[in-house]
Structure formats: C-alpha cells, structure tokens
C-alpha cells in the first residue's frame, strides 16, 4: 500500500495552497473550455490565449476541485505558459503517458505507445511530482482533468474559424 506522501508531495500541496494563474480571461479573444469529472463533480475552466506567434500567451484557471485536480491544473498552467502549441500538445501527451495505467488494456494501444514515447522526449520538471497519483487509480482522473480540458482549448484556439 502506497503511503500518502506519494500522493501529497510538498510541491503539490504548495500548488494547491497557492494556485498559479488562477482567474479568468475575456473570451473571446481567449478560448474558454469547461472540464468535468463525473465521479466527483469537479469542474475546471481553462481560459487560453494563443498569440500570433503560436505560443501560449496567457492561460487562466477557474473552477473547483480536490487538491490533486487543483494542483495539477496549477502546475499545468505554469508549465505551458510561453510554450508553442505543439510543445503544449507534446506535454499533454507526455503527461497522460505518465498517468496511464496499462494493466487494464488488452490491446497494445497505439496511443499509449505514442504517449510513452512523448514522455521520454519531454522534460516534465515539477510535473514528475504527480507521478505518485498513478498508485491511486481513482485519483488519476482528478490529475488529468485539466490536461484534457487544455487539449480541447488548444483545439479551439487553433481551429481555422477561431
């Protein structure tokens, strides 16, 4: 049985207590996407502004959730700010690779393989602290909520008609 210290690392608690990039942006011009965890009712709203240079010019997070979903969102916002859209997408893949539990898959899912590859190429930095969540399967969705929402926001911000 993994202990709580694997889950609630100091840096996670820090992001939970002092969330970065908390707030809202005008949408439009920003993309605004809501994410939702049906298990617990947690909600996250991602506001994303991609600049003319194809980089994440600004990002804000609102919504409510547990320490894992809140800190993951906070760390996510800090880590993608200033990144190009492609870099952000690679980071999402890498993060989800880190979070995926392979045991319940029957087929060697290609997505997983790609995620794992992405993971090995991308520097995760502080995000590694969230790795302990994998040992608590119920909480994985808490950790990935904001990342899935970011993926949608990136799609929206870069859609041809946006």
């Amino acid at each position, binding site marked *: *049985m993994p202990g709580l210290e694997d889950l609630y690392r100091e840096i996670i608690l820090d992001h939970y207590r002092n969330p970065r990039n908390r707030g809202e942006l005008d949408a439009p011009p920003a993309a605004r996407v809501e994410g939702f965890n049906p298990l*617990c*009712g947690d909600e996250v709203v991602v506001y994303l502004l991609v600049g003319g240079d194809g980089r994440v010019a600004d990002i804000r997070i609102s919504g409510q959730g*547990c*320490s*894992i979903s809140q800190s993951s969102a906070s760390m996510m916002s800090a880590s993608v700010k200033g990144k190009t859209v492609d870099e952000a997408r690679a980071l999402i893949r890498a993060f989800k690779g880190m979070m995926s539990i392979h045991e319940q898959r029957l087929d060697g899912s290609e997505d997983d393989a790609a995620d794992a590859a992405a993971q090995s190429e991308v520097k995760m930095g502080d995000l590694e602290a969230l790795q302990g969540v994998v040992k608590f399967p119920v909480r994985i969705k808490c950790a990935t909520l904001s990342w899935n929402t970011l993926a949608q926001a990136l799609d929206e911000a870069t859609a041809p008609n946006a």
Partner: protein
Amino acid sequence: MALDVARIKKDFPILDVEVHGGKRLVYLDSASSSQKPRAVLDAMDRYYETTHANIHRGVYSIAEEATRLYEESKTKVARFIGAPSARGVVYTKNVTEAINLIVYSWGRANLREGDAVLLTEMEHHANLVPWLILKEERGIELRFLPMADDFSLDLTDLDRLVDGVKFVSVTAMSNVLGTLTPVRRLAEAAHAAGALIAVDAAQYVPHISTDVVDLDCDFLGFTGHKMLGPTGIGVLWARDELLEEMPAFLGGGEMIRDVRLDGWTPNEIPWKFEAGTPPIAEAVGLSAAIDYLSALDLEAVREHEVSLTAYAMRSLTERYGDDITFYGPSEPSMRGGVLSIGFKGIHPHDISQVLDEEGVCVRAGHHCAKPLMRKLGVSATARASFYVYNDEADVDALADGLESTARLFG
C-alpha cells in the same frame, strides 16, 4: 435492548482486516453498501455446496429444494416489510432495476404526454433518471417537492404540486442528508389526488422497521447489498392488483405461461416479472440477512443508529465547532445514520483519502444525487454512514482522522 456491537463486530469477517500496515478497518460507508455477516456468506456457500440447481423447472430433489429456498426467501421478505403475501415480491438485480421496472411497465402503460409525476429534489439518480428517460420519450411532466432550509422535505406546496399528478415516487430517506420523508402523509396526498405512490426505500428498509400496509404505499423498492445481503439482488414489492394489471417488462424464460412463434401469454405474478434465471444464491443470502437483522430486532437497530448519530454530531461539534458543517436535519431522531459533512473547505476527496490512511472508510462525492448537491451548493460531500457494526470508537476514529486532514490541508 441495546445492540451488543462488540459481539456483532465479530460476525463480520471484513472488520478483522487491517489496512495500511496494521490499521483496523473502520467501515463508515454502509449507505453505499453494507458489509456481510458470516451467516450470510455461510448460507450462500451451503446453498452452492449442497443444493444448487436451476429453480421452478426441476423435478429432482435438489432443484425442488432450491425452489423452496427461493420462494421461502420471498416469504421472508414479505414478512419483513409487512406485505400481505409473497405474490407481490419481485426479485430484481438491485433497486435501480426495481424502479426501472415500475417506469418501463406501469409508466409506459399509463403515462402519456403532459401527464405529471411528482418526485422530490432529494432523489437518488435511481429514482430520477428512469423518469427523465420517460420524459424525453413521452413528454411527461416532472414536478419536484423541494428541500427546506432545515434539510427536511418542504411540504408547503404539496397540495398544489400533487394536484393532477398520476404518480408520486419518493425516497423514504435521503442517502445524502439522512432526511426521513413523511411517506404516509405523501401516500395520503397521492391517493387523495387519485395517484399511485412508489417509495424508494433503499436507505429505509435496512434500518427502520417497515410495514407497507402502514405506509400505505403502492410500490416499494430496496436493495439487498445495503441490508447485509449480497450484491446482485434487489426487491420490488407492489400491490398484487397492480402487478396483475401491469404489462411484462423483460421477456424470456420463467415469465411465460405459453409461447408460440407468433405470440405468448404471461405467467402468474410475481414470476411474470422475473425473466430468466433469477439471483438464486443471492435470494438465499438475502434470507439469511433478514434472519440476522430480525434477530437483532429492527427497533434496536434504529435506536442504536439514532444514538450513534447523536454521538457523532455532538462529538464532532465539540471538537471542531464551526469548522464542521452537517448537511442534514440537526435532530438525530428525525434522520437516518447518514452524515454528510463539510470540513474547513477541504475537498471531500482529500478528506476521504487522508481518512483512508487511518483505516477510516467514508464516501466522497455526489452520492448519485447531483441535483441535490447543486441545491446544497457543493460539488461533493464527505459522507459517513452507520450500521449495526459501528460504535462510538468508530466515530472517534473518524474524528481523529479529520485532525490529520486538517493538519495536511488546513
């Protein structure tokens, strides 16, 4: 007579389990699913080891005995809820299926566009989603009795809301708030309005002595796994005459009298509603669970839970004052042993996770009652719930665990 909880605990093998390196398991999630006493597990094992065969169709002796055990189980269920006969007892897989059966069979046969059904804002999804599905399909109207500020059911507008409805379907006890609803009064109002009434008694039958004649309801549903019984079995009780009139729901073996390639005729009730091989071993387990509960005596069970709830509310308040919020009626005798709490603004997931580390199991989430959570203005609560095997030491473990939670997140 007070429950001898120390002795009762010994009957539940899982309570000997140690978690997280030597922590005693403090199970406070019986509103989700109860634990099972050895007597229930033994009854099912004995059934499989000596008697198992498919029922109703076999001439040979183990099949005959299996059939007898199955029907005896229904007789026990009928007695347990004060039903006049076992003919009104239908076994389903859980109470959710029982409610769906009402909606699919009675509902689709009797409700047309514009017909109104009255529910409450406190319903479990099991007594809401089936009606929402019918609403989409048929355009029926759903009305809701609201929750009052003191977490009771607000009856102020009952007369207006019940007027003209064809059906009333209400929880007897909220699985989030612990609120007991005034079922008899609602039944009276329903019948005065010419409507039938169904009661979701999933949180009631396991804890409070139930008499369907006394409650004056037309349908009553509950679920085995919340009353010391196994998973895989639920109960729908209904008045015989209603079951007689209602069209069949699931089709298959057992529920027919005759079948031709171009048509079929239904079996007698209750079998008309039991298509396919029923949960036979589960029925035997439910029998044993009812025996166990009856031997404890439901009056004593209720008394125990009221006093444990009172103790929990008192001791948590003494220790945490305004840092703790109870979502539910403040008077223990007006509620069940289900305690939804808010604590220092800490997310229920985090509370439950930290408590787990101390061996304390509480549920965190929306408890399958999202509309009610919205009304409460929260996305989740942490919920502790009590049953026959819980005692004050369990409550103390919860209180201590909250302290660890506060230390980490406070």
